[in-house]
């Protein structure tokens, strides 16, 4: 296929009868807008118009970042200890420009950019950069281990020039049973440069997940946001330093460094670190330490971690111990921003053995699964993380309920609510009596290439029987899925129970290609079941496929 020609023709078709303005007019409008913007900007902060300077390597080579014991103090928080103050500055902190024997070292992972050759005496922190042209989202995934009891896990970082949001976790080895009120007191400090907007917490059995938002009012060449105890203005636990620079192709960007402070206790361990990198995150190198603490890498963690980049599973060989056997997560696309779909090979026949739960937020998760013809098993879950937010989920071995009295976490999955598909949502309002669900109304349908969600309401709290859904694709392949709407969540404002059935096709099946659709053996009347935006019958059936995001043909029910 001549792709270039195809694209060229497509562009011509799309332009159609559209008449763009002349270049002169276009230029005039751009300059007019610039003028208006300039006069409005005097009292406002606009992320795209920040004064940015060319690359200044000395920023990166002279900054001093000391990784210290960090939130090890959290372990002592439970015992009531207090962090030392100004440790960073006393040891050649950023504001002073650093002492000679301490250097920062890092290199970018995506290009041959700045590489600092000197090795620091102390460990360093990582840096993450975000371009103000982009969303500023950076996946960090760096851990700091402190002895056997506590790990601080930095997750994600978002900075758009005004708002910075950092997500991190405190992962304790044992289940949290003590008072954790001190953890709730950790906030980013308000300064002249900005103030804390919000802090959110999620509590799992041994994890405290935190997400803090900070709004910048002004942005000088360098801005720092420190986290400390809300009630103690002088306390400092860790912080962010953001400064302007440029990247390898002279693009303006804002480099952010996250550093940890240490308690006054000089015996506190200083950690080595090695960063797990994803695109746009700078790699740190491993440095010698002055203490005896050792890096706790993934192999010693009880719970390994699944990395998802752009919805794709990064690991190519992930095996989980499930019950008395093993299952392997097969590589591929597993998350689209709403639906998580794991293809498992191994000792699993149905979804009753495996569960999923959020460790950050109480979420109503719809899960299900089906056995595939090739012997693999597809486990799916509807995980609706709002755009811009992140969450952490645990895969659970539910069989452990029988043997150990509680489900056992076997894998950790990080997801972010960045949806990368186009979907259609339509209100249906259909009485499902004729489809064997007398008490349910199908309220909404959401169709995307990755799944079909059917949202039901019911006046009574009954458990609907298994729903069998079958559809035929354009090439004649018949696909099946089973599920049940189940007992739903009760909504006091509506007085109804709400449930959702999620239909997730096999890996290579695109639901938007469906030709016929039936529920519980009954083929639907296409005029009455699916909304018109999901399907259409051409006036004259030319046999040509219609745009898939618009049309899903449904067969008529047989009366």
């Amino acid at each position, binding site marked *: 296929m001549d792709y270039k020609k195809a694209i060229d023709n*497509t*562009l011509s078709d799309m332009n159609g009868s559209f008449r763009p303005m002349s270049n002169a007019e276009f230029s005039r409008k751009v300059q007019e807008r610039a003028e208006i913007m300039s006069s409005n900007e005097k009292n406002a902060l606009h992320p795209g118009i920040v004064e940015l300077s060319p690359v200044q390597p000395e920023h990166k080579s002279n900054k001093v970042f000391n990784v210290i014991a960090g939130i090890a103090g959290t372990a002592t928080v439970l015992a009531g200890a207090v962090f030392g103050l100004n440790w960073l500055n006393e040891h050649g902190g950023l504001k002073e420009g650093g002492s000679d024997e301490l250097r920062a070292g890092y290199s970018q992972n*995506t290009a041959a950019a700045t590489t600092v050759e000197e090795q620091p005496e102390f460990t360093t922190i990582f840096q993450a950069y975000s371009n103000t042209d982009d969303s500023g989202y950076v996946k960090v995934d760096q851990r700091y281990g402190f002895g056997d009891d506590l790990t601080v896990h930095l997750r994600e970082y978002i900075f758009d020039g005004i708002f910075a949001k950092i997500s991190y976790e405190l992962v304790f080895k044992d289940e949290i049973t003590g008072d954790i009120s001190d953890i709730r007191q950790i906030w980013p400090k308000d300064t002249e440069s900005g103030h804390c907007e919000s802090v959110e917490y999620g509590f799992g059995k041994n994890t405290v997940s935190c997400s803090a938002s900070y709004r910048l009012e002004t942005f000088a060449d360098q801005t720092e946001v420190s986290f400390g105890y809300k009630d103690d203005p002088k306390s400092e636990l860790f912080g962010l330093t953001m400064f302007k620079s440029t990247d390898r192709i002279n693009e303006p960007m804002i480099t952010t460094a996250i550093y940890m402070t240490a308690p006054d206790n000089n015996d506190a361990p200083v950690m080595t670190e090695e960063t797990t990198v994803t695109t746009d995150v700078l790699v740190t190198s491993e440095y010698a330490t002055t203490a005896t603490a050792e890096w706790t890498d993934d192999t010693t963690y009880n719970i390994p971690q699944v990395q998802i980049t752009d919805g794709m599973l990064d690991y190519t060989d992930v095996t989980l111990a499930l019950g008395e056997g093993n299952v392997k997560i097969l590589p591929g696309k597993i998350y689209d921003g709403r639906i998580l779909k794991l293809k498992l090979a191994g000792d699993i026949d149905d979804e009753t053995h495996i569960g999923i739960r959020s460790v950050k937020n109480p979420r109503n998760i719809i899960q299900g699964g089906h056995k595939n013809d090739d012997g693999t098993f597809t486990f799916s879950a509807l995980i609706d993380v709002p755009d811009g937010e992140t969450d952490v989920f645990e895969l659970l071995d539910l069989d452990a309920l029988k043997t150990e009295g509680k489900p056992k976490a076997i894998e950790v999955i990080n997801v972010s609510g960045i949806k990368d598909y186009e979907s259609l949502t339509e209100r249906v309002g259909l009485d499902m009596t004729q489809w064997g669900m007398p008490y349910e109304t199908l309220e909404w349908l959401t169709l995307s290439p990755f799944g079909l969600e059917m949202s039901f309401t019911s006046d009574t709290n009954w458990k609907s029987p298994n729903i069998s859904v079958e559809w035929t694709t354009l090439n004649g392949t018949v696909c099946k899925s089973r599920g049940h709407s189940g007992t739903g969540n009760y909504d006091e404002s509506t007085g109804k129970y709400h449930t959702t059935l999620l239909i997730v096709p096999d890996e290579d099946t695109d639901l938007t290609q469906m030709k016929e659709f039936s529920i519980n053996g009954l083929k639907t009347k296409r005029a009455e079941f699916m909304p018109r935006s999901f399907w259409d019958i051409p006036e004259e059936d030319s046999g040509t496929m219609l745009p898939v995001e618009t049309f899903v043909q449904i067969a008529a029910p047989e009366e």
Partner: protein
Amino acid sequence: MSGLDLDRYIELYRRTVTDTALFIVKNPADAEDIAQDVFLKLFTYQGNFNSDEHIKAWLIRCTINHSFNHLKSHWNKNYVSIDSLGEMQDKKTNDDNGIRTALMSLNPKLRTTLYLYYYEGYGVAEIAGMLRISAAAVKWRLKRGRDKLRDVLDDERSIDHGL
């Protein structure tokens, strides 16, 4: 940047910017708006460029970002009115063997990657830099896009031949 410089870059790259946006957002009026936003950004940009090629790459990257932001604001609102179905029917008859329809049916990320590779002629490494993804991800998107196009076009031919 001076007005004269802006005029020059509009002359050189307006078509590229608009086409890039159009291929993602699928609407010429929206693409025109996005193009204005992008050139506004260029006009007020304070940094330095190394070459015209650098500017072009910068413009394309800005355009992609703006286009995806535009798409995000329209996700889950992609209703198709009955009136527009007739319009689509007309366009469909001009579609050369369904290729246009197939291209536009692709996920925007796949579409963008194919566009940069085949239409703009950028290499894998350059595209990786523009989209801030790995080279492996670029290759995966190219393969996936081609596979999906092939599947869609095969289905079309099956229907056309009554299979």
